[in-house]
């Protein structure tokens, strides 16, 4: 207990906390991001309706405009979609799927990136040359294109029912795997600096194995920049997922993400039901913008040179 209090006090006294409280935009975006993520995670408990509970859906309730307009229904704040689902609840459940895919994809990129970067930087030589060349080739192709290709190949290789079941994992894999080179490059750069420091030499002298040195000694010292890129990448991964789902090759329609909701709503744009697509769109922008602003701040705060 005393120890956690000490850690808390140390954190409140740190430079990072100081720079955080001094930047109103950062505090605001942290609050917004917190609300978005909280709303998404707690959706099953706090959402006003359950959009997946077929029993509660009434086609009578379909296409209701937002509550503040003339024909609006006060029980549906942001209106309802074509099947009578509450748009606000659908957004909260959709953000859950978007964030889940985003987090898992970033986690995958981070693990692949760190492994490749550590190996390339610490072992060096041919390993380094080959791994970095692969990263270069990967970097020449835009993420969306790679993710689309992976999805297309999986779709062609597997029967439809199987594909629908694993679609979520395919999307996570496609986004995660197309994003690792940025992590690998950063980790490699920091590893090249760290490997010549005295503590690594000391570890080598006492006869530790190469993998042990890499994992327990070098790795903790190269994690700072990884955290920054991971934050910035989260916003990016959420956008990539939304784009894929919008193109119709992302998560299955049974588990709609924000991108799927926008795509569904897009069909009703011309008949005047703008709220079905615009509100999920706003939710996506707010979520990504707040996460990106946090990432920007974290980059500046952890980089003393910019201060």
């Amino acid at each position, binding site marked *: 207990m005393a120890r956690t209090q000490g850690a808390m006090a140390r954190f409140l006294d740190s430079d990072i906390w100081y720079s955080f409280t001094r930047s109103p935009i950062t505090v605001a975006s942290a609050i917004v991001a917190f609300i978005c993520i909280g709303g998404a995670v707690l959706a099953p408990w706090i959402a006003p309706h359950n959009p997946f509970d077929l029993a509660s859906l009434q086609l009578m309730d379909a296409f209701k405009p937002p509550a503040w307009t003339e024909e609006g229904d006060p029980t549906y704040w942001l209106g309802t979609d074509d099947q009578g689902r509450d748009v606000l609840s659908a957004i909260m459940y959709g953000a859950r799927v978007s964030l889940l895919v985003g987090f898992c994809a970033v986690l995958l990129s981070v693990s692949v990136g760190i492994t490749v970067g550590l190996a390339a930087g610490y072992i060096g030589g041919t390993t380094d040359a080959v791994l970095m060349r692969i990263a270069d080739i990967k970097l020449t192709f835009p993420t969306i294109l790679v993710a689309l290709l992976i999805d297309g190949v999986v779709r062609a290789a597997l029967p439809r029912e199987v594909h629908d079941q694993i679609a979520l994992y395919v999307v996570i894999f496609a986004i995660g795997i197309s994003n690792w080179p940025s992590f690998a490059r950063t980790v490699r750069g920091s590893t090249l600096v760290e490997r010549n420091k005295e503590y690594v030499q000391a570890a080598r002298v006492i006869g530790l194995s190469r993998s042990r040195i890499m994992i327990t000694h070098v790795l903790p010292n190269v994690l700072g920049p990884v955290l920054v890129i991971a934050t910035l990448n989260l916003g990016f991964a959420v*956008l990539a997922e939304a784009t894929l789902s919008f193109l119709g090759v992302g998560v299955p329609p049974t588990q709609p993400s924000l991108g799927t909701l926008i795509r569904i709503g897009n069909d009703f744009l011309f008949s005047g039901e703008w709220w079905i697509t615009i509100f999920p769109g706003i939710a996506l922008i707010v979520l990504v913008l707040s996460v990106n602003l946090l990432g920007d701040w974290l980059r500046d705060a952890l980089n003393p040179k910019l201060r």
Partner: protein
Amino acid sequence: MFAFIVSRVLQALPVMLTVALLSFAMFAYVGDPVAIMLGQDYTEAQRTQLISDLGLDQPFFVQFFKFVVNAAQGEFGLSYRLSRPVADLIAERAPATLELALCAAALALAIGVPMGVYTGLYRNSWLSRFFLTFSLIGVSLPTFLIGILLILTFSVWLGWLPSFGRGDTIRWGWWSTGLATWSGLKALILPAITLGLFQLTLIMRLVRAEMLEVLRTDYIKFARARGLTNRAVHFGHALKNTLVPVITITGLQLGAIIAFAIVTETVFQWPGMGLLFIQSVGAADIPVMSAYLLLIALMFVTINLIVDLLYYAVDPRLRIGGGKGGH
């Protein structure tokens, strides 16, 4: 110069071969082309005949070699979905995508550069702040959402511009252009803005950063000391020196524009290569996918090569290094 070009081409070759291998592996191992081509009723003899006709009984590397030779001649077989030669499909769709991409790039340059110069020169004016905020939003907005918002505003609410298709096109040999008709031009406006907006903000930020850096240098101070007008200093001396990185980045971004055209073309139902590709992904049409992959790779490699050559032409320091530099 010659040695430099040769070394660059030699570096590009393995990349192309890797992509070709991937593309071939997709072609050969994903799905079963024989089953798709034969349909429901066939005898075992027909099947064996088709397999040997397609050369599928030959060793991997022989097949791969044939694939590369065919691909180099623009021969990618038939689309599973449309039963037409893939090369024809792509040639039909390419003009639409290229016109869209070039217009988007031109738009981004024409608006992004002046905005960048302005924000670089008058750093603290309220208009600069507005431009910078605008660019932050431009970076965070996903392409498809920009398209939807534009359609909602200009097609649904105001009814000024069409929301899908290319309008009327005029055929010019094998090239079909929408630039020569009024409805074609009107149809181009919204997709070009959608595709160009991200590049616009990127160029603006780049020009601004470069301008700020150049304005601090000694030769600008010297130019001012010589009593040149602000106009001559800003545009004759400062802007000229910022243009090299701008041209490079725009060139490199042209590849990204063509890739992102997939999204824009889907939103606006623009009949280009991107729409063809996304429809092929949905239908698991492997020949079209692998041809598109190779084509995009070729485009990227070519653009990279041209950009490298531009560097070489513009930056004399690279020439002294005997082409070892690069970037």
